[in-house]
């Protein structure tokens, strides 16, 4: 479609906000947390794979937590079972934290961009 009087020449894009610094900070944060591809550099391939694997474990861990809370709310667990389940999930969270530290990963690193669907976590 060619431009016509009905479709006039475009102007340069405007950026309008009263909170520029706040948006710059947030957009930098988003850019920093966007998952990059696995780097094939031998020095960093281990961390890239760890990030991918730990992301999947974190996703499953959160599902387990939700399931445990639902079962607790459903009233089909005894107090002893609730305590045991809670302790198991608490240890799993601590173990995952340990692995993240070992591979130099932060909480926000554990995510996957699924394109139009959004993020995994």
């Amino acid at each position, binding site marked *: 479609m*060619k431009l016509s009087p009905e479709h*006039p020449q*475009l102007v340069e894009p405007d950026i*309008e*906000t009263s909170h520029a610094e706040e948006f710059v900070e947030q957009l930098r944060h988003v850019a920093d947390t966007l998952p990059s591809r696995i780097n094939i550099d031998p020095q960093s391939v281990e961390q890239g794979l760890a990030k991918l694997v730990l992301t999947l474990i974190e996703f499953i861990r959160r599902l387990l937590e939700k399931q445990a*809370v639902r079962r607790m709310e459903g009233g089909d667990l005894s107090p002893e079972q609730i*305590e045991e389940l809670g302790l198991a*999930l608490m240890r799993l969270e601590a173990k995952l934290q340990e692995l993240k530290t070992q591979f130099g990963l932060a909480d926000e690193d554990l995510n996957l961009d699924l394109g*139009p669907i959004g993020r995994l976590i």
Partner: protein
Amino acid sequence: MKLYAYCLAESVEEFTVPVNGISGAPVRQLALDGLVALVSDLEIASVPVTRENALMHEAVVRTVMNQTTPLPFRFGTLATAEQIQSYVSARKTALESRFALVRGCVEMSVKIIWNASFNDLKVELPKSQNEEGPGAAFLLKKKREIVGSERLASEAAELKQWLSDQIQGLVREEQVSLRPTEKLVLAASHLVERDAVATYTQKLTAARLERPELHFLVSGPWAPYSFANIDLEFEMHFGVS
């Protein structure tokens, strides 16, 4: 020799003055089955993501935008002429539909920051459950987080609906990303007819006054980057980017 691809267009008039793109390389038109790809010949393996290169990519796409609405390639797309030709031939019907969608439109972007957080939400729990051991306390903490997170999701969904209502009838298509647990809670891309951009902007200005607790960033007009989708298809087709 590879080609750096900026965008596809239905037709582009010859440039009256030379247009230069990435690394100062001249931009030329590559005719493909009734479409045109805007490309530069580059002898490099990849294009570094620098401010200068990103602005050059955008400048070339904008030059085309002044004539027609293009489908931009993702920044950094390098391919051979044969690959681009094969991609266009294989995806001709889908590309025609995509051009029909964006024809006569531009992309406007709205981002919203809020200050909600589930740490601020008070979730009351039954007293008897609070008297359990560390395992049960852990599950109660998780329950608090889940309930808080669900409340935020609900509030974010209301915000999305509110924004949609403000610009009803002005948007041909929208893409909205909601992240209730983050400060930057909503990022929306709206496909707006060129004639309607001024009205759209006015409506958003009024909307901002209605919700002073929210922080807005409105930008555009842009080429329809969020609605082109050809980068992903291209990558899947050839395994290149």
